[in-house]
């Protein structure tokens, strides 16, 4: 039992170690210029992490990312939930959304620059668009699948529709909404970087794309490692939050395993 617990604790670091080893072996076997080994890349980490300016850049990117996420949470979740409970609204917005999301933001940069400048605003907008995609659809379908009788119960207590959206649909669809958040969080880091591809000021994407432009692949992969670590930490923190928020919905602890084998 305790051995199992130890293994569980060590699970994540062990997996990461295996991953790094696989990377090292693959890179050595392939011996490609654009694919450095793990050791080469990790060797570049201190140069980035002990450089105040780089850290500041990464911080600036993260700030934009959180702004974008916050905006997405504020807009996409309510919109998705409303669509889930209101078929007419969903029928109206669905075509618009599925026509708008596929458009590559990079191609619209001139318009974005025209209206929002080259600064933070346009990048936050791009991040918002990326993050809102999973948030919106997971909220939408989560809300649509909610048991009607929960809403009926609330309505019978005299709760009006807007309040029901917030107090019944939101918590009821929360597991699915938070799944959207988890996907959105991973995407946020990706979009955060790609939002800095075309017009760059200081940021993590700037570091990464500059390294790419200079073919400094170990630096590129060092940035990737940093982003992966950031993503891991964010996801870890988010999982804790998620479990706290939806512990009531998790199936019984010993359920999916079944039996005492």
């Amino acid at each position, binding site marked *: 039992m305790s051995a199992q617990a130890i293994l569980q604790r060590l699970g994540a670091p062990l997996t990461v170690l295996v991953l790094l080893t696989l990377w090292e072996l693959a890179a050595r076997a392939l011996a*490609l*210029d*654009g694919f450095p080994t793990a050791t080469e890349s990790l060797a570049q980490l201190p140069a980035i992490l002990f450089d105040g300016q780089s850290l500041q850049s990464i911080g600036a990117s993260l700030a934009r990312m959180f702004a974008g996420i916050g905006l997405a949470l504020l807009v996409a979740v309510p919109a998705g939930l409303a669509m889930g409970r209101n078929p007419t609204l969903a029928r109206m917005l669905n075509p618009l959304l599925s026509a708008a999301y596929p458009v590559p933001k990079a191609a619209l*940069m*001139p*318009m974005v*620059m*025209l*209206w*929002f*400048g*080259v*600064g*933070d*605003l*346009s990048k936050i907008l791009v991040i918002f668009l990326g993050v809102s995609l999973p948030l919106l659809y997971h909220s939408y379908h989560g809300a649509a699948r909610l048991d009607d009788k929960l809403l009926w119960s609330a309505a019978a207590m005299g709760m009006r529709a807007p309040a029901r959206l917030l107090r019944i649909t939101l918590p009821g669809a929360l597991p699915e909404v938070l799944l959207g958040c988890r996907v959105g969080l991973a995407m946020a880091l990706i979009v955060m970087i790609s939002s800095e*591809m*075309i*017009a*760059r*000021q200081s940021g993590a994407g*700037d*570091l990464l*794309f*500059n*390294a*790419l*432009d*200079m*073919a*400094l692949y170990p*630096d590129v992969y060092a940035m990737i490692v940093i982003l992966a670590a950031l993503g891991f930490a964010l996801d870890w923190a988010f999982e804790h939050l998620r479990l706290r928020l939806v512990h009531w919905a998790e199936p019984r602890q010993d359920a999916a395993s079944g039996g005492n084998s």
Partner: protein
Amino acid sequence: AFLALCGQTQAADDIPTIRVGWSIPAEEMKYWMMRRPDAFPDLGKQYRIAWTQFQGTAPMVQAMLSDAIDCSSQAPLSLGQGAASGGLQAYVLAQHVGERKGESFSVYWAVAEDSPVRSVADLKGRTVGVNVYGSGVYGQMAMILKQNGLDPERDIRLVETGFPGSEAALRAGRVDAAVMNQPFALRAESKGGIRKLFSLTDLMPNTVHIFEVCRKDFTDAHPELVKRYVKDLRTAMALAREDRAETLKVVSEVTRAPVDLLDGYLLTDKDFARSADARPDFEAIQQMLDQYQQLGMLPAKVDVAQFRRDDLIQ
């Protein structure tokens, strides 16, 4: 545009600001101004610069068209296309880098040492890497191919490798000929195993690569401001050429390329050519614009005269 104001980091006081777009890797003048502002008495006091880095010159044309930046680095083709198709009106005010036959580096195509490709004509049916399809460098390559009896659309298979990925693509055998630019050329040469096939100087001796451009409406409205900027650019060119050691540091700070690598080519005869007064070579630009028109890459003749405002260049 009103939203742009909110997003823009506006100077709190009334010091005028120029919004400048830049890119890497060969704009030492700007890197100096960004990294060593104290070397320029006016900078930060008489005027300010808001820097934004871009991926390539075309996005900077769009940014200028969107009124998101005032000045930017440009190449002849993107400026010509911006003017011919996008309605961009701008002045060419300083030249960053160009080529000078025999004295400087020239963008070239390399093949593997043991490749059977010995001449341009041998490229028929081969895979050729280019930085960007439809770019200025591509145009000049196409011209060279034509001169050697090859149809660039049909006789070769073209892939976009970008400059940074070029060497790797060649070594991995993904392309038969790869385009080489600094500092990637130096790195590839030092590893060996490659051979130069042809270079842009084969087409013309004084190709212009990058120059500085400011929007016409902006310049006409703030001639003094732009003048200061151009003056500082020239100061930067002088500084860059005089103090090579410092320039190496500056460039390394901006591009994060190690000083060792830069030391191998920067400001030597393995680098592009820079003129002391950073004066644009309008003749060469016109020649290039004409070539592009000939290739159909420009829809109409573009007269370089429209980009001149001589009182700012002296």
